[in-house]
């Protein structure tokens, strides 16, 4: 049975249509969730998409966490529901303290958009079908993607680092970290954009493997 996946739309979200498109391609029934509503309408999983919520003027993702919907997302996360934050969504989840660490300006001081290789380090509901060690090619596009955490080794030991940049660390992230999860593993964030790597016409399909929690049944691929 296909899963209903909510894609949260904030003012300034940009990649929400891309997320809907990608989720439909992996077999989900996606729908938009509006930031000003305080409920998730019974979806099976939540994606917080990329973009520039509220302009990202103070800090990327800083204002979105105060939106009514985020209370519902936090509760859903606490109950073990799968939540994925992509790029700006990752920033939002970190600011909301649903994920550890923070994301700040790239060391290059420039926005960077290119395909990068990421290595799968741990599995969680979103990477369920992948084997640790697998390398995927997925695009990044961000100006504030440098992941910062005081104890990256501890985080890795706890199994919370699920993606690392394989050879090209594009933003100066500590320990090449490209994606982390909460301690329970149901909330995941990543800077690469899996929703932009689902269509062979648009640069490959490696991103599908990072959307496993949206796929029907146990991940078939």
């Amino acid at each position, binding site marked *: 049975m296909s899963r209903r996946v909510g894609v949260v739309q904030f003012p300034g979200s940009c990649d929400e249509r891309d997320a809907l498109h990608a989720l439909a391609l992996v077999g989900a029934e996606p729908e938009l969730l509006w930031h000003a509503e305080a409920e998730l309408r019974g979806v099976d999983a939540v994606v917080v998409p990329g973009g520039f919520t509220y302009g990202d003027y103070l800090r990327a993702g800083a204002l979105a966490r105060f939106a009514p919907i985020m209370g519902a997302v936090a509760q859903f996360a606490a109950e073990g529901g799968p939540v994925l934050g992509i790029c700006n969504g990752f920033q939002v989840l970190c600011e909301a303290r649903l994920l550890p660490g*923070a994301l*700040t300006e790239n060391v*290059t*001081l420039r926005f960077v958009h290119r395909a990068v290789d990421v290595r799968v380090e741990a599995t969680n509901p979103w990477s369920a079908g992948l084997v640790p060690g697998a390398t995927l090619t997925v695009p990044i596009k961000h100006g504030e993607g440098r992941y910062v955490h005081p104890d990256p080794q501890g985080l890795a030991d706890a199994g919370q680092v699920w993606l690392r940049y394989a050879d090209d660390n594009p933003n*100066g992230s500590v320990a090449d970290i490209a994606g982390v999860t909460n301690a329970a593993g149901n909330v995941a964030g990543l800077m690469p954009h899996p929703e932009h790597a689902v269509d062979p016409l648009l640069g490959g399909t490696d991103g599908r493997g990072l959307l496993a929690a949206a796929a029907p049944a146990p991940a078939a691929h």
Partner: protein
Amino acid sequence: MVRVAIDVLLKDEILDPQGQAIERALPQLGFEDVREVRVGKHVELTLPAGDDLAERVEAMADQLLANPVIESFTYRVLDEDHDRAR
């Protein structure tokens, strides 16, 4: 009412690439031996005075203006006669 200035800086242990860029550029302009450049945000706001001013300013800085994971903040009450355009 009282005007307060809050300065937000990346914590010392967090790399500050903007600060580094400035530090690299200054010697080219003839300013030698400049060290430890840090770039941050300066926020000014006016709010009601009161005994709990410190508490309120710290709370707003903690919850919104700064991200305590990577940033620290300081604040000071500005003299009302101060030039606000600074």
